């Protein structure tokens, strides 16, 4: 399943040249970077905040911050990882503002076993065309991911929706690799548990 990258081809990422030009004041180069990543940044923000207006604001603010701080970008990481990190921080800040009582932090390791221990062992295969309308599937996928604690949701989004590597996810979140792995496992198992319940029910309905 994972993409295997050959270790001996260390190419220079095309973003490097764009970033260099943008640093020189080339607005067209920066706009090209915006074009490349606006969709991803919006998606990350929407997954974390679960709110479209917030995601729009965050996307604007994240690019503005990136633009203003471009000089500080050293190129030790990929530009996209750096950008995602800015967007994640903006998103978590937004969540904190919304939930005044509850803390939202990547560092709180939620010590709940809720849903992280598999209990449902039904087999299922999603078969969207036959069983459900695409909108129903979308609804269930949104609701399911909404039920995750924000820290888990964020890790899952970067690693499994956006396909960042574990190391890039750790970098974007300021977490250690083991912390990312532990959150990712629990996020995946919790989602699996909830989807199992849903698809099991769906199969029952389809067969009745």
């Amino acid at each position, binding site marked *: 399943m994972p993409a295997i990258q050959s270790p001996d081809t260390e190419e220079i990422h095309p973003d490097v040249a764009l970033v260099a030009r943008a640093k020189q004041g080339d607005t067209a180069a920066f706009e090209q970077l915006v074009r490349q990543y606006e969709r991803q940044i919006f998606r990350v923000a929407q997954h974390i905040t679960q709110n479209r207006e917030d995601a729009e604001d965050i996307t604007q603010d994240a*690019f503005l911050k990136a633009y203003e701080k471009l000089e500080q970008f050293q190129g030790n990481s990929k530009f996209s990882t750096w950008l995602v990190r800015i967007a994640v921080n903006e998103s978590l800040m937004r969540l904190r503002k919304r939930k005044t009582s509850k803390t939202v932090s990547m560092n709180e390791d939620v010590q709940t076993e809720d849903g992280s221990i598999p209990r449902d062992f039904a087999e299922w295969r999603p078969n969207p065309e036959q069983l459900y309308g695409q909108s129903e599937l979308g609804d269930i996928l*949104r609701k399911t991911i909404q039920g995750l604690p924000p820290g888990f949701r964020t890790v899952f989004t970067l690693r499994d929706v956006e396909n960042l590597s574990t190391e890039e996810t750790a970098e974007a979140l300021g977490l250690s690799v083991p912390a990312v792995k532990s959150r990712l496992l629990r996020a995946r198992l919790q989602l699996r548990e909830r*989807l199992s319940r849903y698809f099991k029910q769906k199969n029952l309905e389809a067969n009745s």
Partner: protein
Amino acid sequence: MTCTDFLSQLTDYFDGKVDPQLLAEVQAHIRECRHCEVVLDTTRQTIAIYRENEIYEFPADLRERLHAAIMKKCNSAR
């Protein structure tokens, strides 16, 4: 290998990064334990379903509006 041990290897297993010495044990557990076989398979399905379905729309008009707003903010920040 217990089911808990197996789960602790699940992420590495998906990434193809299980320690070679452990891999045989992991594979044996999958063959012998029906529950973990299902967990493995349905977790894989879970990841795939989120990867394959864009759950939030990003229509062209939103993209244009957003793009314009970003560039406006950046240009006025110079």
